[in-house]
């Protein structure tokens, strides 16, 4: 395990990350507010405000996502998201075993953070799934909901908007689960807040 300071998070990654976090959290809260809207609700954001905020943050997170893709294409950050399929299953099993048992027995992480490998195999797979599958689906379905007149009126004898909305809501839920796990896993570092600090300073300790 390295004890050196590593500069792993360049400024653009940190900016993208925090903007993404702000927009995603706003989308999550406003999305839940719309889905469970009620004339008498007092603790959620009003439907009208939720619609406005959701639309604005949806557009902004799409632009931010484009910056992430462009950044990953034109900088070295993209290499951290490349998955070697050979031996992946074994690497994932090792990492899961570490999270479930090894870390309680004070074992060293099987895939320590290095300049060449920012993420462990489990992080890599989940980040790739979230950023390259989940995000495109939720963004495309979100834009379709923003321009509902472009969605086919009927799909399989049912409203085309329903399919779009279901995709949007289901992937919204999956990404929310990802967010919670992501936040929890970030507390595995010692001290607990060091990963959060890293995303502010750029330096990994």
């Amino acid at each position: 395990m390295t004890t050196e300071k590593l500069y792993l998070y360049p400024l653009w990654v940190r900016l993208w990350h925090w903007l993404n976090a702000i927009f995603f959290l706003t989308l999550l809260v406003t999305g839940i507010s719309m889905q469970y809207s009620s004339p008498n609700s007092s603790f959620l954001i009003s439907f009208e405000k939720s619609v406005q905020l959701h639309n604005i943050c949806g557009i902004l997170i799409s632009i931010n996502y484009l910056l992430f893709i462009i950044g990953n294409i034109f900088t070295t950050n993209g290499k951290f998201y490349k998955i070697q399929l050979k031996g992946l299953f074994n690497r994932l099993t090792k990492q899961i075993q570490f999270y479930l048992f090894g870390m309680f027995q004070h074992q060293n992480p099987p895939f320590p953070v290095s300049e060449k490998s920012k993420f462990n195999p489990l992080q890599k797979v989940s980040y790739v799934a979230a950023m390259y599958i989940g995000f495109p689906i939720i963004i495309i379905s979100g834009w379709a909901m923003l321009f509902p007149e472009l969605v086919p009126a009927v799909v399989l004898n049912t409203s085309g908007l329903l399919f779009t909305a279901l995709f949007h809501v289901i992937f919204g839920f999956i990404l929310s689960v990802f967010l919670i796990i992501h936040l929890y896993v970030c507390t595995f570092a010692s001290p607990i807040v060091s990963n959060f600090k890293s995303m502010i300073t750029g330096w990994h300790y």
Partner: protein
Amino acid sequence: MIRPKIKHLIQFISFFFLLTVFPIPKVNADSVPDQNYSCLKCHGHHTYKYQNSDLGIEIKEAMCTKRVIDTLAFIQSNHGKFKCTDCHDPEYNTFPHPGNLRMELMYVCTDCHGGDPEYAKFHFEDIEAAFYESMHYQRAPDAFTCWSCHNPHSYKTHARFGADISKTVLYDNNICLSCHAHVSKYELLTERDSINILKTHSWLPNQELHFRNVRCIECHTQPNDSLLISHVVMPRANAVRNCTSCHSKDSRLMASLYKYQSLESRKERGFLNAVILNNSYVIGANRNQYLNKLSLILFGLLLLGIAIHTLFRIFKH
């Protein structure tokens, strides 16, 4: 190049196929009372001809637009099997029509349907009472009758027979727009001269989508438990502007646009307000009960897993 004979054969087969797949709608000629032909001969067209016996010539005249009857719409309407003289004075059978007939009083719905057990399910008396409460009647009691909105020569019941909701929306909204989008007809009923539905509804997000999928009366009438379609048209100030009236579990649409379907088919396919799904999707009103429960269970398991993991981290530290 296809030889002309083969080309004609293909055209014939295509035409035959089209006729089979999309048959020309039939109009049952037997359903039209014979006496109506003599009326519709003139009133079914924009022009009519008559023989001027004094001059000995045939005269062609333009028919007053208000007196033109859309024959096909009439035959297909609820009243399509009636003789013209069932509602109009038999003296109309003579031509030129006597001038005093212009003053004839028109029947309203309850004149025929009121107190009739066969039509009890339509609640015509309740409709009439609701109509008297409506701002239409309140503002112009002499000008408004049932026929101001429901053309007796084309009126067709839609919602009650489970027709395609989008067709019901189009049909019903066209009733409102026949005045609210036509200055000449609008001016007959009010002194206000400007109508701009798009401008007055500019606050409405996704305006086109709303206009295509919900009826004006969803927001502009007071829902009534005993009536399928409320007839208490409210003043502009009382119109619904609160999004959650429709975009919520207890969507107002279930008591109006989807009332008939919701009465017929309750909560199917695990969706709350499932009936809305057949035609549209209303954010906040459509909630899949199974997905809701599944998401709660998954979320609970996630938190439980994190809690157990945290406890191990604390105790094994």
